Every structure is written in C-alpha cells, then in structure tokens.
C-alpha cells in the first residue's frame, strides 16, 4: 500500500539519499531527489548523468545512495538506464526475478537539455518503462556556472558574462518540457520542490503509468544564482507564483495546469533576489527586463490556451 502523502507518514520512511553528500549548503537538488524518493514506494534503481548531483553523492568509495545506482557518462543517463530496464524485463521473462522494480534517471539541465538530449530522446522514443527526472538549475553549476540551453534570458554566467558588450544571456530558454511532450510519451510534468505535495503526486502518477515519463523540476542553486543559501525553497515558490516555472502535466496529450497562482506576480520578484540578474535593473537593460517578462507572459498564456484546447470534450 502506498504511504499516505502526509509528512508525518513520509517521515517514517528510510532515507534513500543519505546525509554526508557533498552538495553545497542550501542546494535545491538533494531536496528534489529526496522528494522523488519519498514518493516512491517501490524498490527502485537510479542512474545519474554527470553533474553536481552525481559527483557529490558518489565521491570515491562513498555513496549517498541507499539504492542501486549507476553513473556512466554525461550524455547517457537515459541510455544506460534503458539498458538496465531492458535487462530487468528479460530477467523477469526468464523467471529469474519477480519483484516489481521502478527505474529513475536523474540529470541536471546540462546533462538533459544539452549533452544528454539525444540519448534521452532515444530512450523515450523506444518506450522504456522509466522516469527521467531533470533537476533544472539553469546552468552548468558543477563546472563553474557556464550557460546551458536552460539558462534564462538575461542571466549572467561565466560564458555569457555581463559587460559593456553583452547584457548576459541574450537567448531564451529552451522549452524542454514541451520537447519531451512532443515525443508523444504518456506522461510529462513540471514540478517544484516548494510545492512538495504536487511534486510527489506527479511522481506517484508517473510510477503507475507504463512507459516513458519525464519530470522537469526546478532546483535553485545559490552559488550560480548568486542568491542566499537559505532561499532555495522560497525562490522556487516565487518561480511558480510568477509563472516563470508553471506547474503542469501533460497526460496522454491532455494538458492540465496543476497550480494556478491566485495572483500572478511580476517576474521582477523572481529576478530581484538573484545576483545573476542584478544588471537587468540598470536603465540601459530595461528592454531586456521587459522582454523577459514578455517571454513568461507569452508562455503562460499559451499554456492556458493549451489547457483549454486539449481538455477532453464533455458529451
């Protein structure tokens, strides 16, 4: 029986990601993994793309994982896990294993949006029964804040540094959640650790659906975002409330927004506490600030219309 989604009940479960990992103080990623694992009541096997999460949870002879876990390379977390899942199916067929086991791949935005996109696309297309979880912190934080295709418009990174010739990243974010939805897989969702119950419900739902599933989860990084160490959860909450990071799911082609903020906050609420956007508040960059808000408005508006458009017809 599934553990009820109450913190009291969940707190009785054993940690599947243990203490002693060396993620930075105040990192959002371990909280994301913790929540995904708390929502999982099945035996589980995980794979990891190279990234912060991988290097700091598995430093020579130590592991923070209480479950079978495999790391291969940067680009192939999905391909590696699809191989493990195939072996599991074969062993099951041969009668050598009878347990119900679930498979989860973890990757950061670098290992998912950029480097691992090809192998992820392949694994999703082949229809492996697994969940791919992308923890999106919006840059290559592990190697020192280089821009990725998940870096938001206007952000300052070490490979698009702010200066007299450049106002930060001038390109928009890649909409990976939508790219995954375009694969026609049964379940795609976006979640945030600030809304833990929503996140866990999505993980639960994904486990009960057979086939490939994709979850994109925001994971604030105080080092890269140039924010304070205590605001990972607060910032992810503001990201949701400004509709920068809308919470929605696409199940068999039907889009559903799982949380609509009562009052859509202006994007500056999300940008202001982060040092990587400091320059956007200079008078000469006002156009960029405006553009960033327009992008959020446009995407939110499209999502609202999509929800209406894809809703099942009531007859």
């Amino acid at each position, binding site marked *: 029986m599934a553990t009820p989604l109450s*913190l*009291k*009940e*969940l*707190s*009785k479960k054993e*940690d599947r*990601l*243990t*203490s*002693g*990992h*060396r*993620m*930075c*103080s*105040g*990192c*959002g*990623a*371990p*909280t994301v993994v*913790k*929540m995904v694992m*708390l929502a999982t009541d099945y035996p589980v096997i995980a794979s990891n793309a190279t990234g912060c999460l991988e290097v700091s*949870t*598995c*430093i*020579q*002879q*130590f*592991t*923070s*994982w*209480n*479950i079978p876990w495999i790391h291969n390379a940067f680009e192939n977390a999905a391909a590696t896990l699809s191989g493990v899942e195939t072996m599991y199916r074969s062993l099951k067929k041969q009668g050598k294993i009878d347990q119900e086991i679930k498979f989860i791949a973890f990757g950061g935005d670098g290992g998912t949006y950029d480097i691992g996109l090809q192998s992820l696309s392949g694994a999703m297309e082949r229809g492996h029964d697994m969940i791919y979880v992308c923890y999106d912190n919006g840059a290559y934080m592990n190697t020192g804040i280089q821009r990725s295709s998940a870096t938001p418009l206007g952000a300052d990174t070490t490979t698009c540094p702010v200066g007299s010739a450049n106002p930060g990243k001038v390109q928009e974010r890649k909409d990976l959640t939508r790219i995954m939805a375009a694969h026609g897989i049964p379940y795609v969702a976006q979640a945030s*650790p600030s809304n*833990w119950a929503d996140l866990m419900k999505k993980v639960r739902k994904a486990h009960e659906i057979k086939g490939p599933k994709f979850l994109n989860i925001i994971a604030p990084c105080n080092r890269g975002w140039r924010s*304070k*160490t*205590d*605001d*990972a*959860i*607060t910032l992810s909450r503001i990201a949701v409330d400004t509709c920068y990071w809308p919470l929605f799911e696409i199940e068999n082609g039907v889009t559903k927004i799982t949380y609509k903020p009562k009052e859509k906050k202006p994007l500056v609420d999300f940008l202001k506490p982060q040092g990587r956007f400091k320059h956007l508040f200079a008078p000469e960059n006002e156009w960029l600030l405006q553009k960033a808000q327009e992008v959020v408005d446009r995407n939110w508006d499209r999502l609202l219309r999509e929800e209406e458009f894809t809703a099942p017809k009531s007859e």
Partner: protein
Amino acid sequence: MKQKGWKELTPGAVVTEPGSSKQFKTGSWRAFKPRWIEENCIHCLFCWVYCPDMAITVKDGKRGEFNFDYCKGCGICALECPGKKGNKAIVMEEEGN
C-alpha cells in the same frame, strides 16, 4: 576516517556499501547554526522535508533535534519555519558563539 589507497579499491570503483557517505561528516562546513526552540514548534515537519542534508531527526511524526554531524547551516529550515503565532521555532546563530 581513512581513505582507501588505489590498491584497495574495487574494479570500476564500484561502491558496495549503500549510504556510506554517512561516514563523511559535513557538519564542519557550517558558518551558521540553527537553534530549535521547542515551545514554538508545531511539528509541521516542513523543516524536515525541505532539509537538503537529511539533518533533522523525526521520531513517530514528532520533530527531534538537529543532527549537527551533517547540518551545513544553510538556513532553509529557519526561513521556511512557520512557527507558532509568528514566533519562529528555528533561528540561525553564528557558529562558535
């Protein structure tokens, strides 16, 4: 804690002991230390679920002390703590005071 030499490592550096990172105490990273004020605690467990370092102990659904072996002092628990009638149950203090 003694690190293994290369001759003692397993082929492929496979780690066979799950959760062994617990031997590595990250508590020494702290610059700020959280203090739990029990009388203001409503045992909502938000601190527990949001803690990135699994450094808050819970027993039978009731919040217990911090595990300072691992707490890195990020302060997320203190910021997210709703407290009782506006009084926080977790406050951050400078380490070593």
